[in-house]
């Protein structure tokens, strides 16, 4: 079995702040892995390094067997990414958005059309395929984004806070679709979240990040067992980070999350 993601002492500093501090982590192929942590814990910075948007200050990482610095293009070909922000273009239709994604990965014309139809059906968006995305609800946009990120059948899918700002019903729908997609394609999934419920529900293993460091790693059940027999993942989180969720986050994080939430709302 090979590894989909390997981080070794992965580090990123911004001026004086060390956003990710010596992260060493291995995610085997096919796993659904959750990075959990408050805003500002370094989850998004970690993902940005893994998807080649940000170069590490020290250490390194391999994704789908390729080095994120020296073989960035090979990494990009192997991954799909759904940012925390909205990545579908609201001024284009769902079908156009999917078409752009397919073309950027050079999915051949005929196959592209088939896959677009198939993924619209899969995501329950067939009827609205020719509508402008800005008329979509938050849950619909998220489903479309995941379809876009999966159109080229990536080895590894990165989801950065995939359900932030969604209501519980839309959140469940997104979970169902991510699960079903993974079942279909056997994709490795790394997602970040600060919803305990989401990590427990979806992920086979969870890593808890705090101030740029991995402070706990294991299956949701293992982590709960470490703290106490009846502990919830919420308590596990507090145990390992020493903070509640409400403390975290810079002004910029909060502003961004609220903006995303408002747009999805």
């Amino acid at each position, binding site marked *: 079995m090979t590894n989909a993601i390997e981080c070794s002492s992965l580090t990123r500093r911004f001026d004086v702040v060390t956003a990710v501090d010596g992260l060493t982590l291995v995610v085997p192929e096919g796993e659904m892995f959750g990075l959990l942590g408050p805003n500002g814990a370094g989850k998004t910075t970690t993902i940005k390094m893994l998807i080649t*948007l940000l170069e590490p200050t020290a250490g390194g990482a391999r994704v789908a067997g390729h080095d994120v610095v020296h073989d960035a293009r090979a990494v990009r070909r192997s991954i799909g990414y759904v940012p*925390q922000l909205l990545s*579908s273009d609201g001024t284009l239709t769902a079908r156009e958005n999917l078409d752009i994604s397919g073309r950027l990965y050079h999915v051949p014309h005929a196959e592209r059309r088939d896959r677009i139809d198939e993924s619209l059906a899969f995501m329950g968006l067939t009827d609205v395929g020719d509508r402008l995305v800005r008329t979509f609800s938050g849950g619909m946009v998220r489903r479309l984004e995941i379809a876009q990120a999966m159109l080229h059948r990536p080895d590894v899918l990165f989801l950065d806070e995939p359900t932030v700002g969604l209501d519980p019903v839309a959140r469940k729908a997104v979970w169902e679709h991510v699960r079903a997609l993974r079942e279909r394609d056997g994709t490795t999934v790394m997602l970040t979240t600060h919803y305990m419920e989401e990590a427990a529900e979806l992920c086979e293993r969870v890593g808890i990040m705090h101030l740029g460091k991995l402070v706990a790693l294991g299956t949701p059940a293992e982590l709960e067992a470490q703290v106490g027999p009846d502990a919830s993942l919420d308590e596990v989180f507090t145990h390992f980070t020493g903070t509640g969720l409400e403390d975290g986050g810079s002004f910029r994080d909060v502003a961004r999350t609220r903006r995303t939430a408002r747009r999805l709302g």
Partner: protein
Amino acid sequence: MTSLERAAPHAASAEPVAPVRFLLDLWTVAQAELRKLAHDPTEVATRAVQPILWLVVFGQVIAQSRVIETGSLSYMDFLAPGVLAQSALFSAIFFGIAVIWERDLGVLHKYLVSPASREALVAGKALAGGLRALVQAFVIYLTAILIGINIRWEVPALLGVALVVVLGAAGFATFSLIVACLVRTRERFMGIGQVLTMPLFFASSAIYPISMMPGWLQVVAHLNPLTYQVDALRALMINGGPSTYPIALDIGVLVVTVVVLVAIASRQYPRLAQ
């Protein structure tokens, strides 16, 4: 792990060679912009109002007062190519706002994690910025017909005008993209956009001949790509329109400008997503 047996083979395994890929990716980006334009043309349409005002109001007043000596051409014939170049500049110089907006939304990230080269992404944006200006060129030609500008209608001349307008606007759109990458927020960009436009416009031969300028401004004008764009347009758009330089030189300057700016922008562009 049996789940690793995939439902479909890897799409990326059959990739075209690099130069073909570059052109395909460039066109994917440009076409996305054009589709947006087709869905909502109001922005480009409203931007076409300003050049009409320059021609009809500013042009008529200056022409009647005869304060600007334009040699063999009437002032209106002199001004029309200048306004055409100016409209390309004005439509392109705020292009960076859209790029910052895409960053704020997350659309930019989607492009940057794709395997498309940064050069292709930026060149696609530049081409889109260039093609948008053609919409305005069309409006300006309609206006020019109505006010009796002495337009050259030969097909090669018209194609030449289109080429020069697209090149000029592509260059300024890329310049705008670079500025966007440096200032990073829409608020700061709005201020800077205004500050940049006017010097580019006034330090060119768009509304008065370079010979009327003080010496230092003439130097600036010769470094300004807009001057070469206007120079080529004057010869290509107007019957008997004089050009100071050979048109090949004008076009050469514009091409080099675009290439250099795209090269700079493709280094800056990924930083916007960090």
